[in-house]
């Protein structure tokens, strides 16, 4: 049994179908990347796992179906989410944003806060600052931190490098590796940046126009020039 199992998933925004017949498996402790161009359905896939979108098909976590569950229940099942647009609370301080993340994990507040501050020391330095006044990189950190405050076992990360400087992207990659190796988190990450995905994930799924095009290990995809050309622009 896989840790996360997505079977024949289709997702809808009203009558518009955004994903068609997607199947993905994730093993415990893996980093899996879903790559594809803008509009491929990457964010919709993660929103579907979080229960934010109407779906058909099934999503199982540790064998338990998540389909039809509310996002708050899915968070309680150990799924944390750092979305592409951050969805932070702009007029709340960094610390209050993190504390909102602790809504379902109140007994772990101290240990989770220590972890977040260890991974992102800048958040501790600027804990009183409103997130509306922060840079994109800092907001990305708060978004990660808030997701970690929910005590997740599975972390969903949506396009973490978009619009960020290369140095910040490198820092984020390091954090994802640490979360995976040191804290044992399973990670599903979506990316347009193929190099970033290939450097981080053990397995990669390629999504285009809401359909799964191909999948394989990072090594397989790295060595397949045809695939690199077709989906990653030859990188």
């Amino acid at each position, binding site marked *: 049994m896989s840790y996360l199992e997505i079977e024949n998933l289709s997702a809808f925004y009203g009558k518009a179908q955004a994903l068609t017949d997607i199947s993905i498996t994730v093993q415990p402790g893996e980093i899996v990347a879903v790559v594809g161009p803008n509009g491929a359905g990457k964010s919709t896939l993660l929103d579907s796992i979080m229960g934010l979108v109407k779906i058909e098909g099934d999503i199982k976590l540790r064998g338990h179906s998540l389909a039809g569950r509310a*996002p708050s229940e899915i*968070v*309680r099942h150990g799924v944390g989410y750092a*979305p592409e647009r951050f969805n932070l609370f702009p*007029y709340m301080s960094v610390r209050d944003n993190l*504390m*909102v993340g602790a*809504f379902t994990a109140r007994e772990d507040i101290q240990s989770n806060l220590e972890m977040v501050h260890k991974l992102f020391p800048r958040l501790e330095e600027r804990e009183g600052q409103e997130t509306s006044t922060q840079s994109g990189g800092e907001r990305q950190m708060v978004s990660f931190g808030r997701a970690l405050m929910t005590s997740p076992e599975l972390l969903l990360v949506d396009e973490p490098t978009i619009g960020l400087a290369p140095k910040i992207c490198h820092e984020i990659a390091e954090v994802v590796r640490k979360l995976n190796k040191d804290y044992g988190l399973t990670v599903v990450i979506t990316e347009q940046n193929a190099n970033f995905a290939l450097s981080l994930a053990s397995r990669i799924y390629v999504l285009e126009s809401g359909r799964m095009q191909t999948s394989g290990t990072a090594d397989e995809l790295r060595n397949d020039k045809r695939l690199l050309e077709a989906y990653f622009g030859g990188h």
Partner: protein
Amino acid sequence: MLQILIQGLLLSGLYALIAMGFTLIFSIGRVLNLAYGAYLMVGGYIYFWVSQSLGMPKLIGVAVAAALGVLMGVLKYRLIVKTLKGDHVAVEISTLILAVVIQAGIVLVFGDSSKILLPIVPGVINVAGASVTFNILIATLISWAILLGLYAFVRLTHTGRAMQAVSMDAKGAAISGIDPDRINLITWGISGALGAIGGVFFASYTQLSPSMWVAPLIISVAVVIVGGIGSILGTLVVAHIVGFLEVIVVATLAPELRGVFTMLLIIGVLITRPQGLFGREEL
């Protein structure tokens, strides 16, 4: 001058209490609850029935009014707002209709003549030459205590932070493990209680009548429009602007113009600063 200052402070405290429940719903649920004035009316009448008709202790009267306010808020959210989710016009029209229906119910039960609500705390005190009734003084002090308590609740508790979170970004709240529906329900309950308690003090300041829901609704709408998306501190500031405006108009022009300048203020702000004076999505 001192009389205006004292009367302005007292009236503004009462207005802040009245408007708070309305701005809470507007901030978190993005709903203009036009039945809010009816909460105040029902609160006032229930207090009248429990404490004056049945002769029970006044505190019991306030508690029963608050409990009924919670019930009205919760039922309204469950039966109307949630059912019409997303259709703001339908929600607002139905809340206005509900206010009229409640008014008809009040006429049926209590009759259409005005009733005098005895002061919750009788007596008059002289403050620096200005005579102040204990009733309005206590109403203001309780109003401040409730607003401070609400501020602390919103800032310091998990549920309060969740209310702020839902008001700022519902998706962000949901992926943090918060159930926005439950938070909305709690907010409607708190709003109902605040409205009903505000109604008890408002009725004791004016009088009970089946049309008494209109004036506090206008005050609440004014506070939301002039203040922008409601915050507790913003509500407090704007309630003082509206309160002082009324007191100054009554003292210097004519009592008949009491509400007129509040209306003009609403129109003026809508034209010159549609987002309101504060216009930040925070509680």
